């Protein structure tokens, strides 16, 4: 299921404004890659280009290519809708649909492809996905309750269950723990560790301990100043980035001597 991502010389624009410049990197399957860097340096923007979610913002477009197992996401005739079914996403704020039950939330993405699903298949998939997100035991007795009745950490795991229910190749996480308490954060981090066996995961985080705990590879983004484009400064094994980075800016950032 998991696939390799290759990014070649990617530029991201918001209308005329160049937001991210010249990103090239390769993400191996079944790894966790963390993207770190100061606010506004384009990590989230870059993350969104991996499933074309940046196109939701009017005027945003990219130049360059993103290959998932050799297929260019930005090739002619590629449907962003299909890209997003392949590359799932978890957002900063937990966003289970408040108008749906917990069970329906899990099935939300699956039902887009497959409207008529046998009840038993649906129940199996709900259980499998919720187990995959370490949430099954907490919610199995109240699958018909609204998704908004859960705590923040549970809601975020419900969102992860919803994302893995469609069996994507890649899962993108945009600061998935920044709205959560430390215990819930730990639960998500454990989950990321387990999910690595099946998926390629890319996670944006402001928490450097988190990056060093969960990721195999780390990319450091930075901007030269306001109005300048964000760039990928250094991309390497997580241990290298945090113990022996080759670029001074990276070392300043990870050691807290930034700015």
């Amino acid at each position, binding site marked *: 299921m998991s696939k390799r991502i290759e990014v070649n010389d990617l530029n991201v624009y918001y209308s005329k404004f160049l937001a991210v410049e010249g990103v090239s990197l390769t993400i191996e399957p079944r790894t966790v890659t963390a993207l770190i860097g100061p606010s506004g340096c384009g990590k989230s923007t870059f993350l969104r280009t991996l*499933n074309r*979610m940046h196109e*939701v913002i009017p005027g945003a477009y990219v130049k360059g290519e993103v290959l998932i197992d050799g297929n260019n996401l930005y090739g002619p005739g590629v449907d962003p*809708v*299909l*890209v*997003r*079914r392949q590359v*799932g*996403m978890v*957002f900063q*704020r937990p*966003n*289970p*649909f*408040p*108008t*749906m*039950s917990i069970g329906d939330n899990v099935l*939300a*993405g699956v039902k*887009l*492809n497959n409207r008529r699903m046998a009840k038993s298949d649906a129940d199996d998939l709900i259980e499998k996905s919720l187990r995959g997100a370490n949430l099954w035991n907490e919610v199995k007795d109240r699958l018909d*309750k*609204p998704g*908004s*009745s859960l705590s923040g950490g549970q809601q975020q795991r419900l*969102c992860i269950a*919803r*994302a893995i229910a*469609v069996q994507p190749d890649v899962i993108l996480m945009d600061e998935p723990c920044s709205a959560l308490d430390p215990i819930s954060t730990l639960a998500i981090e454990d989950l990321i560790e387990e999910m690595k066996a099946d998926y390629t995961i890319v996670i944006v985080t402001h928490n450097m301990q988190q990056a060093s705990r969960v990721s195999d590879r780390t990319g450091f983004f930075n901007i030269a100043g306001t109005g300048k484009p964000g760039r990928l400064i250094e991309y390497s094994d997580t241990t290298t980035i945090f113990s022996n980075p080759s670029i001074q800016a990276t070392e300043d950032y990870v050691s807290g001597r930034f700015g």
Partner: protein
Amino acid sequence: MTTIVARDTIRAPQRAGDRIFSTATVVAGSLILAVLAAVAAFLLVQSLPAFVATPADFKGDAANFWAYVWPLAFGTLWSALLALLIAIPLAIGIALFISHYAPRKLAQGLGYIIDLLAAVPSVVFGLWGIGVLAPLLQPFYTSLVEWFGWIPLFAGPVSGTGRTILTVSIVLAVMVLPIITAICREIFLQTPVLYEEASLALGATRWEMIAMAVLPFGRSGIISASMLGLGRALGETMAVAMVLSPSPQVIFALLTSQNPTTIAANIALNFPEAHGTGVNILLATGLVLFVITLAVNMVARVIINRRKAFSGAN
């Protein structure tokens, strides 16, 4: 002991601004209740003679008040229902177009035009119904009866003027369209980006995103908007009075020259020449309209509350 506790209870300091503001809101809240109570009391007192009126007091051949008011109540609900059936899907479509499909500049212009429609006086709509819409629709009605006459709704004989309950309902639909559209548009624009992105990230198309996030989130708003529209359709007087020549019966057929009229239109048509108990009877029909509107709104409230936990408000 208890007295000491009572004395030591800490009271929040009272600020002048707070007090003025809370008094103002209480006054405003009470005022609307008082006005409503006054109208209800007036209607109730004035209606009482109607309930014991003799057959001679009624226009037409009704035996008592209930026989008199029933076709009118039916006509009111029937025309309002038809109007809403036409207006709600159209309003949701327009609102979605403005909020999610149209380019921003076009959306704004369209929004203004819709709001403008709400400011047109109902007499104008009535004249438009008689002068433009009825003649325009008449040939269409004729073929409808010709081909689909076997469906009871479209049973003949077709009206020669086109001034039928369906024409009235279309006029009413145009009249209630702006308010439903305006509210739906606002509601749809309020859909949190959070949920729209959630569905898009799952691989939803634009329409699937709307069906998954926007419409469920706006559900209670759509119902409330429809209720406001229904209120206007139920109470609309001039347009109905001008377009229809009433025959007080319960008729479902949409295209014949025999059409039930509405309570409000009936009051407007008969009030100038009513006297004595006749006035009381007309006011009693007004009371019935009042009760119908109240009941419809309560039903809507129940529908909204039934799935409150899933409304997205928490």
